[in-house]
């Protein structure tokens, strides 16, 4: 059975943590198409969290096309977990690695890189709003 974990101090809402863990596991190949996710009761009883949080997470996964419920049987992974990324993501990955190398050579620390990314995303969002 797939076991979730919860980080109470991360600041990330619980349901999102569950969604992230499924996405992550899919990328790494730990979850594969056809795997059954634990029941809401199992997760709620394992982590001591609100069962509605689990329901919300599973609904989000359905919305993203990663999982689907079969009535009476549970929730199953529907996405293919191919380690090979689609072409667009592959190209982005390459340019990202180039940028990171450039940033390191410019002398930015790991924290500064993260902050820079956050500011850029924020500005982009403002642009979209106005």
């Amino acid at each position, binding site marked *: 059975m797939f076991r979730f974990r*919860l980080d*109470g101090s991360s*600041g990330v*809402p*619980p349901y*999102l943590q569950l969604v992230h863990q499924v996405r992550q596991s899919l990328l790494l190949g730990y979850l594969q198409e056809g795997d059954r996710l634990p*029941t*809401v*009761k199992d997760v*709620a*009883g*394992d*982590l*001591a*969290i*609100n*069962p*509605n*949080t*689990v*329901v*919300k997470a599973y*609904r*989000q996964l359905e*919305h993203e096309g990663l999982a689907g419920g079969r009535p009476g049987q549970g929730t199953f992974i529907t996405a293919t977990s191919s380690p090979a990324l689609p072409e667009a993501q592959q190209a982005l990955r390459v340019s990202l690695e180039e940028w990171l190398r450039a940033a390191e050579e410019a002398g930015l620390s790991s924290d500064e890189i993260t902050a820079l990314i956050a500011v850029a995303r*924020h500005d982009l969002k*403002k642009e979209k*709003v*106005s």
Partner: protein
Amino acid sequence: MTQNDAGDSPPALRTDQLGRRYGRVWGLRDCTLEVPAGAIVGLVGPNGAGKTTLLEMIIGLLEPTEGELSVFGETSHSPMAARLARVSYVAQDHPLYRDFSIADMFHLGRSMNPSWDQALAQARMDALDIPLKRKVKSLSGGQRAQISLTMALAKRAPLLVLDEPVSSLDPIARLEFMREVMATAAESGLTVLIASHVVSELERLCDWLIVLTSGRVQLAGPADDLIAAHPLLTVPRATPDADLPGVIIQRTDSDRHSTVLVRADPARLAAQQHPAWQADPVSFEHLVLAYLQRPSARAATDDIAQAAARPGPSTKAVSR
């Protein structure tokens, strides 16, 4: 199981201008709430805020001085036995009869509750590996808490009330206790009301929130709706209060900027938002603490609060 839509089943709890006076002091006043079945509610407030008063009225241990109260349709005019059958209760110190054996406690449960489920009680003891013939006084604090919880769950009432259930327990015992509550809620659609002043634990447990200070409800509603209604704005320090949308809950000023928690619906916010402002979602804990710290005022009954108190589908997709 998920929360029911309010449709046909009665709400787990409905109060209308509920109040209780002790002599000349009001322990609780103007309490108006409607909690849907299946919700897991966190009741937060400092000691003396009125949590115990509210809980005891819900359970049937105390009568209201004014206002109305109903639990799954049973009001304070219903027969006492019918009211008592709707609620299970675990008090703060997990009271049990110390010289009883666990089997005796279950016999008491059977004797005093027509709805008692002995199979469930037995199954829980098997799962916990505690023999029934042990005396209560020989059990550890964590085990006693589990027995109290078993007594409450075996009563099979639709509403479970927990008064600071884990404050006296070590971390392992706490986890075991809440695991059982959440698993049972998942399985049977139990409505749970947890009174606590440990805010940090409540986020993962509760999808509904009631904040009580000085005997009045300051905030009440589904947690997601409340968080959506309270953007956390980062604004320039010089921004006057009047320019800010909605009701200011908490304003923290630094040298060049201010962080302001407001209660404003998205339309209001969109209309008044300035390009220089940043709006982020508030965290559960921050929201609760902000309300707890507010100088006590009558809870405003504006649109947002009323909307938050109405039952509705709880699983809107919320962008965080």
